[in-house]
């Protein structure tokens, strides 16, 4: 058990022990979500701003519900509704929010480093909800939580991340988290989207799907971000599906207990067959459920002040 951070900006700078602290804490918050009364007063009287400069429904909803279940007060900002549209800088927007005496900023931004930047200019706790193609730490933590819950451990597992790695902050955060926790990570996809440079992060890189999934315990599919690629990174979605889409025939070659993950939103029929996404081997909806518990844990942990972890008796 160790946690003394005021922010959650990335996975890269966390220790394995800190990651495990989040996962252990999240287990307690998952239990809260299963009770008749799903709310605890841990953040009562604290104000959280969800500053989503880049569009997001899933992550924002998940953060919002986590904050509500911790009894925080919430303000939501989206790019369209904020003065960022009128040319205000991110720093000014954030400073103005802070002048309202807010305690937390959850930031989603298209620029890598946006969360780190805010943590330097603000006193509020900053949580990175995705910055460009850099990191998406809470997604990696909820993925690790889901794997650990289903497999009982992470160390020694073969985890294959499949798809658009190059543009994926989810992949980067997952690679950091999984390698720190002792998993063996394989990356697979078209050579244009899975360059060999990722080997420097401690991963195996292959461009052959069969080789990537044969020994996998977890197959983590990433969405093809066609809005980012504009068709320049591979010839067509159809070709991608032919070469890298997960279908029944390919699933039959995997270990019988290999499980499928996907951070959503799913492109059914592109990276995954519809039937597989809905099958018993899919953890997609468990990931969504666990996202609440993990985000509650992160908010709870960064809220802590300095001082001893153990509480005196009485």
């Amino acid at each position, binding site marked *: 058990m160790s946690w003394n951070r005021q922010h959650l900006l990335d996975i890269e700078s966390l220790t394995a022990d800190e990651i495990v602290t989040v996962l252990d804490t999240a287990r307690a918050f998952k239990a809260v979500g299963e009770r008749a009364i799903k709310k605890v007063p841990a953040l009562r009287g604290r104000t959280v701003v969800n500053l989503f400069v880049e569009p997001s429904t899933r992550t924002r909803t998940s953060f919002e519900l986590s904050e509500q279940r911790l009894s925080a007060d919430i303000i939501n900002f989206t790019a369209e509704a904020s003065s960022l549209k009128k040319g205000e800088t991110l720093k000014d927007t954030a400073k103005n929010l802070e002048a309202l005496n807010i305690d937390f900023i959850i930031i989603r931004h298209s620029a890598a480093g946006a969360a780190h930047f805010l943590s330097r200019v603000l006193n509020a706790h900053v949580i990175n909800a995705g910055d460009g193609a850099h990191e998406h730490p809470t997604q990696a933590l909820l993925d690790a939580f889901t794997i650990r819950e289903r497999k009982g451990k992470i160390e020694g597992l073969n985890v294959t991340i499949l798809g658009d790695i190059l543009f994926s902050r989810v992949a980067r955060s997952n690679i950091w988290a999984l390698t720190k926790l002792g998993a063996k990570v394989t990356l697979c996809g078209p050579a244009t989207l899975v360059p060999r440079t990722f080997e420097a992060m401690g991963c195996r890189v292959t461009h052959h799907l069969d080789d990537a999934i044969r020994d996998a315990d977890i197959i983590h599919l990433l969405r093809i971000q066609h809005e980012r690629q504009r068709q320049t990174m591979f010839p067509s979605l159809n070709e991608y599906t032919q070469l890298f889409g997960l279908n029944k025939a390919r699933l039959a070659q995997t270990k019988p207990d290999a499980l499928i993950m996907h951070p959503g939103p799913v492109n059914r029929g592109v990276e995954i067959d519809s039937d597989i996404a809905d099958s018993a081997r899919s953890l997609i909806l468990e990931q969504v459920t666990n996202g609440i518990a993990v985000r509650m844990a992160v908010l709870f942990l960064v*809220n802590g002040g300095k001082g001893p972890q153990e509480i005196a008796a*009485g």
Partner: protein
Amino acid sequence: MPESAIVLNAAAIQRALTRIAHEITERNEGGGDVVLVGIQRGGVPLAERLATLLAGIWGGAVSSGSLDVSMHRDDLDQRAAPKIHPTVIPFDVTGKTVVLVDDVLFSGRTIRAAMDALNDFGRPKKIQLAVLIDRGHRELPVKADFVGKNVPTSLAEKVRVRVGEAGVEDEVVVERK
């Protein structure tokens, strides 16, 4: 090296718990509605011991659960986030007499948090409080119904309760820092 004195040894702890079990029996005749909830962490092994003793007296199993109060504490922003231990209450508390069990009663803040936390699980008919040690220094109007031993302490002292730990004798020690 801090100075320390044993205030209860293993036999004295067992005698105190036996007496508390009888006092709980006296207060709650028949015992049909009584359930025990130990506060993490020190209260949990004590609640289990009391459940065993009460089962012997009443001639039937007595339910015992565990409650972590971290999420209901009033000092969360003044200290590092605490480690959260499991809350397991495998029975309905509504309409029951819940005996909260803790090892040391000190400021009373843990008990306030525990009563709030317990409310999220239902509406007990009554809540009673059993503690092994009452060391004084209350900061809230909280009073125990059942006390193993009153131990007057100074704020510079620390009360350490060891019950049910593997390989060590049960004991209660007061340490001077």
